[in-house]
C-alpha cells in the first residue's frame, strides 16, 4: 500500500483498524467465556487487557509513518474552514496578496522573456555581435570594407554576417506600399542557424556588385502579396524600382532586430559609402563563435585584427578597436536596468502586502490565543501549533498566488503595449513553467513570512494565565511586533513615494525645458522617392525640389523643408571638423553632429538665429561652401573669438564659411541632451551635397512641414502633394514633432506611471495596515481606557494617547524609509536620464503627505477609543 493510498483511503483504513481491534476483543471475550468466565466479567477483562481502544488506535496510526501527511491534510482543511468562517478577512488578505504576487509575477514574466530566456536560435550562447570601437569606447557600426576583411581573416568566429536597414516601396505584385527591409550578406540565416521556410539564402556570387537581383521575402509578405502561393519562389517582386527574383521565404514569425519584410544582398549596394573605409553606413555585424572558442579568445583575436587594419589603413582605422559581445546583450539593449529596477519596486509592494497580511493574521491569532492555549493544554505540541499556523499561511499564500498568476496572465499583454518604444523580444514574453515556479516560490516565501509571526507567538508557557486572562490584554511582545509591522510598511512606502516624487519632479523639469525649436504644428515624415528618379543625381535633386515647391503652394502649409536628421528622432550623423587648415591625425579630430537641410529648415523648426543668416537657395554647389553652427559649437571651437565669418574644415567637404550661428537644439531628447557626449551641431545646405551621395538621400531624407492648422489634419494633403505625378512616391513614418518631443520623455513617463501606481498601492496598503493595527491595539485596550476615563482622563487625552502611539511608529518608520529612499534616489540618478540627485523639497513634501495619510488612518481608531463609555468598558472586565 503506497503512502498516497493510505492518505486517500483514510476512512477505509480507519474502518479496518476499528474492525481489527473489535475482532481481537470479541475473540478474547469468546475465549474467556469458554474458560468459564461470565460474559460481563469476560468483557471487562478483555477491555483491561487491551487498554483504551482509542489510545491503541492512536498508537497504530502513529506507527503508520504517514502521520505528518495526515496532519498536513487536517491542517489544510482546518485552515480552509477558518478562512470560510471569516470571509471578510479572507477576501482582504487574498486580494492584497493577489495584487502583490500578481504585480511581481508580471514583472518577472517580462524579465524572464526578455533577459533570462536564451535567444530562440540554436546554440544561442555562441552568437555574438561586433562593433567598431573608437578611442572613446563608443560602439560604432562597421565600415563595409573593414567587415569584409574581418570576415576573411577571423579564425575564432566560424561565420560572420552583416546587415543594414533598407526600407522602400514594394510596387508589385499588389499596390505600392512602404515596407521595412534589410540588406544582408550571404550567410545571415546560416549564422543564426535558422532554416528558411522555403527556398535558399543568398549565394556568395549574389552578394557582390553586379550580382543578379535576388530577394528573400518574409512569410508575412509572401502571404499578403503572393497569397502564400507555391509559385512565389522564382517570381518577381518590385522593390524601390528594381525587379528582384524571390529565392527564399523566411519562417513565420521570424524577427531579426524587429520585423522586416524584404531582404536584398548587401554586396550589391554600390553607394559610395560602401567603398570608403572611413564611412560607417550603419552596417551591423553578427557572428557565430567556433564551438571551442570562448568570448575572450574571440575578443583577443578581433583586437589583433583591428591593430593590423589600423597599421594597414591608418587614415581610416587608426585608433579603432573592435568589440565582441553576446548577441543577446545587443538585442536586449539597455532595458535590463529598468526591468530590474521595476522588479525591485514591485517587490516592495509585495513586502508591504505580506506585512499587512501578517498583521491581520497576528491580530486574529491574538484573539485566538485562548483557543491555542486550550489545545496546548489538551496535549498539542508546540511544533504542531507552529506547523498549523504555517499551513494556514501557506494556504492563504497559495490561493493568493493562484489569483495573482491569473491577474498576471491578464496583465502582461497590456503592460507590454505600454512599454515606450516597444520592448525588445516582447514576442517571447509568456507565462511558462519558470514563471509559474517563480510565482509558487514567491507565494510560499510570503506565506512563510506572514505565517511565521503568529506561529512563533503560539503560546507554550503560562498557559494558565492566558486561559484566565482571556482575549483582552495585549502582551508587550505583541505590541512590539505590531509596531514593527507598521514601521516596516511606512519605511517601504516612503521609499516608493520618494522615488515616484523624484520621477515626477524630473518629468516636470524636463517638460519645461526648451527643446531649442518649436515643435507645435510640425509634421515630419520619411519619403520614398519614385524609382524613376533614382537613375541620375540630377533627377533626385529635381524630385526633392518639386516636392518642396508643391508643398509651399499647398493651403495650410506655412513652410516645408528637408532634413537629413530629425532632432530627437533617434538617428544621428557625426562628422569630424577642425579649425585650422592642417588636418589633425586620422581619427583624432573632434566630432560634431551633422544635419543636411534645405533653406527653410530653420523657419520650419523655428530654431533661434543668434547671428548671421541661415541658408538660401543660392547656397549650392559651385558657390562658396557655407555652414551654420549652433552656439555650443561656436563656444567650443572658437573660444573667446568671433565664430561668425570664420572658416571651418569638415571631413569630406573641406573648408566652409560659417555664415550663421543658431541656438542649440536638444538633439538627444529633453532628458538626455545635457549629459550626451556629443552635442555640438553643424548644418550644411542640402544643395551642397556632391552628386555621388544624391542617390543615398533618396532613402535617408525626412520631410518637415510647418502647418497653420493642426498638422495631422494636413496628412492627406501632404501625402497627395508628395505623390505628385509618381504613383510609387510615398511618405511613411509620419509623426508630429510634438509626438517626437514627448516621446523622448516616454521612459521617464512610463517609470513615473509605474512608480506612481506602486507608490499609491504602497500608501493605501500601509494606511490600511496602520488602521488595522491601531484598531486592534485600541480595541484590546478598551478596559484600560475605561479605567483611565473613570479616573478623569478626557476624550482629548485618550485621543492624544492613541495618536501618540501611532506617531512614534510612523516617525520611526519614516526615518528608516528616508535612509532607504536616499539610496534608491542615487540608484535612480544612475538609471534615468535627466534625473537630479535627491532634492530636499521632494523628501519634505512626500514625508508630509505620508505622515498626514498615516495620521488620518490612525485618527479613526483613536476617535473610537476616545468615545469609549467608561461604565460599559469597566463592566466588560
Amino acid at each position, binding site marked *: 500500500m503506497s503512502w498516497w493510498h493510505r492518505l486517500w483511503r483514510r476512512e477505509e483504513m480507519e474502518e479496518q483498524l476499528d474492525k481489527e481491534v473489535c475482532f481481537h476483543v470479541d475473540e478474547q471475550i469468546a475465549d474467556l467465556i469458554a474458560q468459564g468466565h461470565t460474559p460481563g466479567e469476560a468483557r471487562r477483562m478483555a477491555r483491561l487487557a*487491551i*487498554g483504551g481502544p482509542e489510545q*491503541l488506535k492512536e498508537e*497504530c496510526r502513529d*506507527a*503508520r*509513518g504517514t502521520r505528518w501527511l495526515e496532519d498536513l491534510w487536517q491542517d489544510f482543511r482546518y485552515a480552509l474552514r477558518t478562512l470560510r468562517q471569516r470571509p471578510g478577512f479572507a477576501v482582504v488578505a487574498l486580494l492584497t496578496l493577489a495584487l502583490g504576487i500578481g504585480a511581481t509575477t508580471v514583472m518577472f514574466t517580462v524579465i524572464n522573456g526578455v533577459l533570462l530566456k536564451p535567444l530562440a536560435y540554436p546554440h544561442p550562447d555562441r552568437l555574438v555581435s561586433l562593433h567598431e570601437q573608437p578611442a572613446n569606447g563608443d560602439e560604432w557600426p562597421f565600415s563595409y570594407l573593414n567587415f569584409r576583411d574581418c570576415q576573411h581573416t577571423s579564425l575564432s568566429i566560424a561565420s560572420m554576417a552583416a546587415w543594414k536597414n533598407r526600407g522602400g516601396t514594394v510596387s508589385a505584385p499588389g499596390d505600392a506600399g512602404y515596407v521595412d527591409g534589410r540588406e544582408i550578406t550571404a550567410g545571415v540565416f546560416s549564422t543564426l542557424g535558422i532554416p528558411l521556410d522555403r527556398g535558399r539564402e543568398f549565394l556568395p556570387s549574389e552578394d557582390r556588385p553586379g550580382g543578379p537581383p535576388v530577394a528573400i521575402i518574409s512569410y508575412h509578405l509572401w502571404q499578403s502579396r503572393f497569397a502564400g502561393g507555391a509559385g512565389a519562389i522564382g517570381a518577381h517582386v518590385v522593390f524601390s524600382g528594381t525587379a528582384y527574383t524571390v529565392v527564399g521565404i523566411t519562417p513565420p514569425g521570424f524577427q531579426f532586430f524587429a520585423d522586416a519584410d524584404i531582404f536584398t544582398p548587401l554586396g550589391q549596394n554600390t553607394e559610395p559609402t560602401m567603398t570608403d573605409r572611413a564611412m560607417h553606413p550603419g552596417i551591423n555585424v553578427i557572428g557565430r563563435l567556433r564551438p571551442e572558442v570562448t568570448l575572450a579568445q574571440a575578443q583577443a583575436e578581433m583586437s589583433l585584427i583591428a591593430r593590423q587594419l589600423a597599421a594597414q589603413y591608418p587614415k581610416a582605422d587608426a585608433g579603432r578597436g573592435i568589440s565582441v559581445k553576446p548577441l543577446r546583450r545587443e538585442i536586449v539593449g539597455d532595458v535590463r536596468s529598468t526591468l530590474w529596477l521595476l522588479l525591485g519596486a514591485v517587490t516592495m509592494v509585495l513586502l508591504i502586502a505580506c506585512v499587512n497580511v501578517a498583521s491581520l493574521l497576528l491580530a486574529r491569532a491574538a484573539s485566538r490565543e485562548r483557543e491555542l492555549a486550550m489545545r496546548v493544554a489538551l496535549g498539542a505540541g508546540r511544533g504542531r501549533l507552529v506547523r498549523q499556523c504555517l499551513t494556514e499561511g501557506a494556504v492563504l499564500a497559495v490561493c493568493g498566488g493562484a489569483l495573482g498568476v491569473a491577474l498576471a496572465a491578464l496583465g502582461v499583454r497590456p503592460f507590454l503595449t505600454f512599454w515606450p518604444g516597444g520592448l525588445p523580444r516582447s514576442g517571447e514574453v509568456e507565462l511558462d513553467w519558470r514563471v509559474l515556479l517563480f510565482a509558487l516560490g514567491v507565494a510560499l516565501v510570503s506565506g512563510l513570512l506572514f505565517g511565521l509571526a503568529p506561529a512563533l507567538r503560539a503560546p507554550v508557557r503560562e498557559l494558565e494565565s492566558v486561559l484566565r486572562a482571556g482575549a483582552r490584554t495585549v502582551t508587550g511582545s505583541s505590541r512590539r511586533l505590531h509596531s514593527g509591522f507598521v514601521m516596516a510598511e511606512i519605511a517601504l512606502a516612503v521609499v516608493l513615494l520618494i522615488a515616484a516624487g523624484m520621477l515626477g519632479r524630473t518629468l516636470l523639469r524636463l517638460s519645461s525645458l526648451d527643446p531649442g525649436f518649436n515643435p507645435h504644428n510640425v509634421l515630419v515624415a520619411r519619403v520614398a522617392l519614385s524609382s524613376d528618379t533614382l537613375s541620375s543625381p540630377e533627377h533626385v535633386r529635381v524630385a526633392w525640389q518639386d516636392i518642396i515647391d508643391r508643398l509651399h503652394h499647398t493651403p495650410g502649409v506655412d513652410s516645408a523643408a528637408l532634413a537629413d536628421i530629425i532632432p530627437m528622432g533617434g538617428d544621428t550623423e557625426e562628422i569630424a571638423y577642425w579649425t585650422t587648415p592642417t588636418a589633425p591625425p586620422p581619427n583624432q579630430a573632434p566630432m560634431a553632429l551633422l544635419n543636411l537641410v534645405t533653406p527653410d529648415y530653420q523657419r520650419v523648426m523655428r530654431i533661434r538665429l543668434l547671428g548671421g543668416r541661415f541658408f538660401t537657395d543660392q547656397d549650392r554647389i559651385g558657390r562658396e561652401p557655407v555652414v551654420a553652427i549652433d552656439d555650443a559649437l561656436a563656444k567650443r571651437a572658437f573660444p573667446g573669438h568671433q565664430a561668425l565669418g570664420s572658416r571651418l574644415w569638415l571631413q569630406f567637404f573641406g573648408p566652409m564659411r560659417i555664415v550663421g550661428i543658431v541656438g542649440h537644439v536638444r538633439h538627444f531628447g529633453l532628458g538626455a541632451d545635457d549629459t550626451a557626449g556629443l552635442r555640438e551641431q553643424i548644418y550644411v545646405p542640402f544643395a551642397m551635397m556632391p552628386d555621388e551621395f544624391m542617390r543615398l538621400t533618396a532613402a535617408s531624407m525626412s520631410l518637415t512641414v510647418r502647418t497653420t492648422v493642426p498638422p495631422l489634419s494636413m496628412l492627406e494633403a501632404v501625402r497627395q502633394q508628395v505623390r505628385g505625378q509618381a504613383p510609387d512616391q510615398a511618405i511613411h513614418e509620419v509623426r508630429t514633432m510634438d509626438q517626437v518631443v514627448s516621446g523622448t520623455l516616454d521612459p521617464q513617463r512610463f517609470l513615473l506611471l509605474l512608480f506612481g501606481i506602486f507608490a499609491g498601492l504602497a500608501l493605501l496598503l500601509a494606511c490600511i495596515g496602520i488602521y488595522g493595527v491601531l484598531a486592534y491595539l485600541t480595541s484590546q485596550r478598551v478596559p484600560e481606557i475605561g479605567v483611565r476615563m473613570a479616573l478623569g482622563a478626557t476624550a482629548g487625552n485618550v485621543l492624544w494617547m492613541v495618536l501618540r502611539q501611532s506617531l512614534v511608529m510612523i516617525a520611526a518608520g519614516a526615518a528608516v524609509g528616508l535612509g532607504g529612499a536616499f539610496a534608491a534616489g542615487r540608484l535612480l540618478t544612475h538609471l534615468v536620464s535627466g534625473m537630479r540627485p535627491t532634492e530636499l523639497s521632494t523628501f519634505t513634501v512626500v514625508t508630509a503627505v505620508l505622515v498626514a495619510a498615516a495620521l488620518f488612518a490612525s485618527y479613526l481608531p483613536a476617535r473610537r477609543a476616545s468615545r469609549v463609555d467608561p461604565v460599559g468598558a469597566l463592566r466588560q472586565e
Partner: protein
Amino acid sequence: MAAKSDLPQGTLDLLILKVVALGPVHGYAIAQRLQQVSRDVVQVPQGSLYPALHRLEYRSLLAADWKETGTGREAKFYRLTRKGREALESETASWQRLAEAVGLILGLSEGGAQ
C-alpha cells in the same frame, strides 16, 4: 493496565516475524501463540502488539489480507513478505550471536580468567 513489555527492545518485532513466518495469521492468534509457545513467560502486552504489527506492515516486512476465519468472521491475516523473511533471518542470526555472547559473559567463573 498492563505494563509495557518486559521484552528487550526490538525483540517483539522478531517474535512477531517468527510467528507470522509459520503461516498467515491474525493479530489475536499471534498474541495467543506467543503466550502458549513461551509457556506463558512472554506476556505480550496487547497495547504494543497492534502498533508493532502496523509498523511492520508500513515497513513492508508484513503484508495483510482480509480473510474469513474458521468461525466465519472476517479478520486481518498477516503474512511475511520476502523482505520480512530476509529481516527475520538476519535478526535471528544477530539475536543468536547476542544471546551466545551474553551467555559467555554470564558463564564466566568468579575470580577472573584463567
